[in-house]
């Protein structure tokens, strides 16, 4: 199969790009590993009935996902849910070949243009005890609420920093499960730094600021205690989370939800060896893209939070810019037309992006988030501690790939998605050099696990091979 544009990820960026690309006459394929569209921010959005009033426990922002899904469903784009990309072979000229798997069947698709729209993931929060059952991310709590209408039973504490922390605390309260406490880890110094440096942007981003203040008021009205400047967080409990402690206090809890912001999901963009840079403000690796989303490889673009955190509204807008650019590159519209249509989109993007530096400074993780103590597990899959990594560095392992060779961190099922930032930060700290110099893992195919049978092109279940000769494979 050959398409004009293959889009990976059915979140706001992917959905907006797919709908517009199809409208502009491009043969468009949108794949996503989830069964339903929406990505993470609009996860479960199709469950919200059309007839329900324009309010939702998740707020108007969440409902903004509905028209995006409707546009996608109504477009000529081919949408394949439940489909995982396990390899992309970039073509020398532009675009590339995607290896897909769905229901144990493997297929390859040639795409003249590729758009990665894989969004964001939670920054890992490596505090002592973070691998215990009962500890989840704040995003996980929201996903359970959105997709399954589930709320935690018993005592709940949220800890960390960033807008999502307050948003979910309020959403849980509205869903009848108010948290016992919210522990904010933003160092006091952040407030001054943020306000002082970015006072100019505060006006441009006033709508976001207004939302933030409304959140804080909502929490106060719901009677949820917020403790600020919390340091040295650690989870208490042996087989399960039983409480959470910090410098100067502790509280019993059955559930602990952590959040230290979100970072771009760069698994595929790093796997493709696209150029990335370390963003010292957002404290993450992000692919280098131009203002159309074009990456360092011809015909491969990135839109949405996967290129840099800017939120859902910006994601949809940047998806549309990428669609316009792809259409112009493939000759469906002229460049003048592309630029004309892009102008209002860029105008919409500006305020969304304006507030980011302020938020990034305000919610910059405290140093010990990037420098866990020795006993803390850094690689959850292979159970490798930060101390083991420091010892490997002393033995001469100078970067994440050498450390991986010594200790196996990054070799487990998650393939470094969770531990990558931690390992780079620990190595940087141990060597006394900036993280930008350390680099990160090089992800390989399969980007997600694929059965040997699907790879071989045989029936996976059941596994008998029909004939008794060596030529029995199709």
């Amino acid at each position, binding site marked *: 199969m050959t398409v004009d544009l293959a889009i990976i990820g059915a979140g706001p960026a992917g959905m907006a790009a797919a709908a517009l690309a199809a409208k502009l006459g491009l043969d468009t394929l949108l794949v996503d590993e*989830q069964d339903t569209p929406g990505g993470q921010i609009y996860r479960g959005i199709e*469950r919200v009935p059309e007839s329900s009033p324009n309010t939702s426990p998740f707020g108007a922002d969440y409902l903004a996902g509905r028209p995006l899904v409707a546009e996608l469903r109504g477009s000529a784009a081919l949408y394949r849910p439940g489909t995982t990309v396990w390899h992309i072979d970039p073509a020398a000229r532009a675009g590339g070949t995607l290896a897909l798997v769905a229901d144990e069947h493997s297929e390859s698709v040639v795409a003249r243009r590729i758009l990665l729209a894989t969004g964001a993931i939670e920054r890992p929060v490596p505090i002592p005890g973070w*691998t215990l*059952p*009962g500890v989840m*991310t704040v995003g996980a709590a929201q*996903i359970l609420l959105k*997709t399954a*209408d589930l709320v935690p039973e018993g005592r709940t504490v949220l800890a960390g920093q960033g807008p999502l922390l307050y948003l979910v605390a309020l959403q849980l309260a509205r869903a009848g499960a108010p948290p016992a406490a919210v522990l904010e880890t933003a160092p006091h110094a952040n407030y001054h730094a943020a306000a002082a440096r970015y006072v100019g942007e505060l006006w441009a981003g006033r709508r976001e600021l207004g939302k933030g203040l409304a959140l804080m008021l909502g929490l106060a009205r719901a009677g949820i205690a917020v403790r600020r400047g919390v340091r040295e967080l650690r989870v208490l409990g042996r087989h399960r989370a039983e409480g959470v402690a910090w410098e100067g206090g502790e509280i019993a809890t059955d559930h602990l939800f952590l959040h230290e912001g979100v970072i771009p*999901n760069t698994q595929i963009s790093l796997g493709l060896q696209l150029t990335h840079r370390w963003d010292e403000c957002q404290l993450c690796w992000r692919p280098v893209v131009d203002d159309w989303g074009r990456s360092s490889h011809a015909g491969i673009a990135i839109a949405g939070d996967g290129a840099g955190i800017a939120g859902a509204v910006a994601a949809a807008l940047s998806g549309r810019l990428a669609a316009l650019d792809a259409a112009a590159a493939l000759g469906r519209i002229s460049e003048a037309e592309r630029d004309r249509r892009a102008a209002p989109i860029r105008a919409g993007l500006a305020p969304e992006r304006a507030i980011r530096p302020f938020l990034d400074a305000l919610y910059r993780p405290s140093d010990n988030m990037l420098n866990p103590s020795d006993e803390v597990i850094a690689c959850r899959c292979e159970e490798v501690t930060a101390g083991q990594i420091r010892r490997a560095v002393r033995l001469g392992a100078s970067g994440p790939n050498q450390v991986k060779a010594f200790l196996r961190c990054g070799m487990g099922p998650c393939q470094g998605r969770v531990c990558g930032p931690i390992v780079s930060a620990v190595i940087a700290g141990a060597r006394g050099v900036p993280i930008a110099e350390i680099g990160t893992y090089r992800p390989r195919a399969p980007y997600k696990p694929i059965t040997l049978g699907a790879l071989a092109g045989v029936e996976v279940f059941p596994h008998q091979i029909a004939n008794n000769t060596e030529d029995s494979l199709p």
Partner: protein
Amino acid sequence: MFRPRPDSPAATIAVEVEGRVVLVLAGASAAAAALMAGLSSIRDTPVGGSERAPYCMMGICFDCLAEIDGVPNRQSCVVAARPGMRIRRQRGARIVAIE
């Protein structure tokens, strides 16, 4: 561990978690069903035998690996619950059934 929120519509998908039947909403994941069934942990790690439960719920951390309908090590947070689905804890490395 997790319960439905008060004004949730009636759950209709019946799945079995470690032999216990629970009802979840259409669109809920197998991991959500496991949490709702009260499983304290969903797997024992193959490396150290540590107990783990779902962490990210979005297919990134792989801590939600469970045996679903007899197939081991599936990311239960990315698998939608279907009627009659059988979900069991993943106990360490998978066992292979060889005829």
